[in-house]
């Protein structure tokens, strides 16, 4: 309640300013509240105060343009000094005072909203439930960032009113620090907190006095521009902020470098209602972070549409298994010496009603993100094993396993269940894993692979040459096969690619590991690979991925 009236006044009645009158705007004199409210500048000069403020601090009625410290003589002991420090500083602070009027305890919150002005809220402890407020909450939590928080930002936006002239605008600049998690991980959380504090200070140093700066969440800040010429002011500020946060920080004796991405949403420019500002700025920020870190992005409706599409896809994915929208296609793997089919790789295909076929390039990352990958992975294993039982016994089935599926530690049980449900001989199942699996938590992944291998299942290294693979992995685990990534085969006219292919084949034969080349499309590629000792291939030259029903025709 208190906040409503506060921000209504602070912002709603705030007229369009030219630069000269920036400092005059916020009028608290008419706010009837049990809490004392005042705007002061950093020297303590009172810009505006409500009657409760004057009462609680026992100030005379006419305080306009007087300095708070000159007037606070009735306060006890060190209070004026504490207050002076709090106002001069940039940290949100709460000071306890004893009122000289009735000896009640007063809590004085000093809040930094921009470089030049402080908002002071005085509450008499017996007079309200104000201690539940967001500010107090923030002060008690010792937030590392001396700024208004998300709650105050929301109130500020909710109570903003356009000017009668209609020229008023509201622009949200949402700033996300890139790679902040990495700072926390490498330099420690204490360093992370310091960096947030410095970033906040830099923002406070460059915003205008009528801008509102808030700490939105962990590594996100917001600058709200009120009644400025848009989008010019917001884009100029965004550029300035990006440049400023790119500059090095000195933390704990070290240099730390980060960058910032920014999303902008401006009222009446693709954002119809002030209630959508946060959502739109977040969408724009998300887009900036994904497409061009260290840049800014202005919200436009297409972002919402993309987000809507993404949302549809997510919802669709959650029920796709139940609605049986997935099918497996199989691509033949042949032995080079006689072009006999020795196996099939199972590939998932999602046909989403109304949207057609969703490419695995979109499906797999989304499934990983939403966690659906576990259920989908299980389904793929069961289905592939079951369908493979209808093929001749000398044909294997290869199934892709994502690194995420190793995270739960129960992949062995899932493989076992698929084998026993289908009665497929374990020797006919091959799991294909990517090099990426072995980056994080190598020991645990290798442990699980060994258990799976003990069942009789073989394990192939997929997409070899595209990740950060270390040759170490090849010697630390008995892979049955190395799959040479199709990008090397496609670039085979380039000397370097050919050299690499040859090296991998040689490596495989030295270690006793079979090599298979993916993406083979021409006889010429086939000849080269055969000549250099590659043992198996897969690709359009032999067959594209086909549905289960067409397999019999391929085999015979």
């Amino acid at each position: 309640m208190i906040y409503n009236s506060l921000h209504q006044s602070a912002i709603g009645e705030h007229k369009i300013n030219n630069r000269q009158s920036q400092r005059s705007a916020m009028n608290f004199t008419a706010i009837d509240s049990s809490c004392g409210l005042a705007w002061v500048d950093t020297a303590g000069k009172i810009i505006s105060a409500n009657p409760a403020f004057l009462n609680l601090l026992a100030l005379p009625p006419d305080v306009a343009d007087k300095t708070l410290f000159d007037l606070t003589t009735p306060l006890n002991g060190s209070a004026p000094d504490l207050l002076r420090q709090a106002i001069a500083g940039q940290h949100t602070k709460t000071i306890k005072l004893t009122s000289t009027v009735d000896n009640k305890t007063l809590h004085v919150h000093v809040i930094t909203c921009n470089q030049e002005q402080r908002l002071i809220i005085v509450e008499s402890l017996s007079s309200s439930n104000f201690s539940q407020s967001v500010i107090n909450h923030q002060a008690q939590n010792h937030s590392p960032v001396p700024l208004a928080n998300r709650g105050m930002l929301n109130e500020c936006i909710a109570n903003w009113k356009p000017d009668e002239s209609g020229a008023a605008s509201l622009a949200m600049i949402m700033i996300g620090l890139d790679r902040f998690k990495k700072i926390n991980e490498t330099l420690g959380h204490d360093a992370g907190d310091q960096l947030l504090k410095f970033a906040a200070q830099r923002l406070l140093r460059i915003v205008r006095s009528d801008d509102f700066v808030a700490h939105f969440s962990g590594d996100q800040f917001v600058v709200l521009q009120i009644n400025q010429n848009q989008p010019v002011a917001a884009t100029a500020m965004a550029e300035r902020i990006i440049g400023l946060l790119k500059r090095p920080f000195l933390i704990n004796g070290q240099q730390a470098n980060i960058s910032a991405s920014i999303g902008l949403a401006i009222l009446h420019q693709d954002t119809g209602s002030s209630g959508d500002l946060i959502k739109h700025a977040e969408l724009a920020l998300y887009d900036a972070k994904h497409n061009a870190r260290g840049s800014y992005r202005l919200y436009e409706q297409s972002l919402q549409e993309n987000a809507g599409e993404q949302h549809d896809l997510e919802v669709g994915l959650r029920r796709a298994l139940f609605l049986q929208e997935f099918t497996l296609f199989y691509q033949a793997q042949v032995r080079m010496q006689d072009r006999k089919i020795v196996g099939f790789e199972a590939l998932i295909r999602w046909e989403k009603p109304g949207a057609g076929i969703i490419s695995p390039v979109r499906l797999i990352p989304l499934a990983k993100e939403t966690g659906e990958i576990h259920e989908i992975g299980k389904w793929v294993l069961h289905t592939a094993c079951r369908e493979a039982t209808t093929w001749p016994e000398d044909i294997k089935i290869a199934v892709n396993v994502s690194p995420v599926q190793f995270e739960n530690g129960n992949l062995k049980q899932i493989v076992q269940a698929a084998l026993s449900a289908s009665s497929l001989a374990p020797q006919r199942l091959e799991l294909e894993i990517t090099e990426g699996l072995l980056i994080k938590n190598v020991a645990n992944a290798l442990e699980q692979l060994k258990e799976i291998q003990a069942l009789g299942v073989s394990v192939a290294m997929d997409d070899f040459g595209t990740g950060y693979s270390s040759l170490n992995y090849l010697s630390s685990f008995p892979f049955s096969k190395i799959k040479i990534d199709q990008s090397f085969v496609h670039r085979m006219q380039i000397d370097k690619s050919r050299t690499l292919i040859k090296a991998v084949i040689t490596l495989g034969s030295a270690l006793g590991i079979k090599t298979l080349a993916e993406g083979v499309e021409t006889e010429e590629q086939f000849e080269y690979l055969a000549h250099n000792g590659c043992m198996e291939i897969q690709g359009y030259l032999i067959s594209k991925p086909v549905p289960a029903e067409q397999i019999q025709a391929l085999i015979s």
Partner: protein
Amino acid sequence: MTQNLYRLIYLSQNTILGSNENVHKEIEQILTISRQRNAASGITGALMFNQECFAQVLEGMHDDIQETFERIQCDPRHGDVVVLDFEPVDARRFSQWSMGYIGYDTLASKEFTQIQLATGFDVKQLSGERIYDLLHVHLYAAEKAGSNLEKIA
């Protein structure tokens, strides 16, 4: 840990526009204010300018350097700040100067330009130590010659 003596060496691009006179005036202002502030927070150091770039050394307690550097970072009169060196030191080498200054028409500044030319303006190749020594040697030489270093050169 944060109350140890540190030194900071950084380079930045000059973004002051206008005539030489205007640039000169701005730098004079930078020096006046930084000398006041540095004296108050126990910072010593030197600034070198060669029309294109600033090179600055700051010495002082870790947290004081941190705070001073944050203020410098927000100054619109320069950009592209590159920290060459930030490390603990045993002693100050610029203790006589709250902000010694070597201007663009000096020998040192010309040497600075030459170093930059030799490294193809690739700041990653510039050594903090070299800038540090350059400033140090020339400030002392100038002092011996009797010029008033606390004045703009």
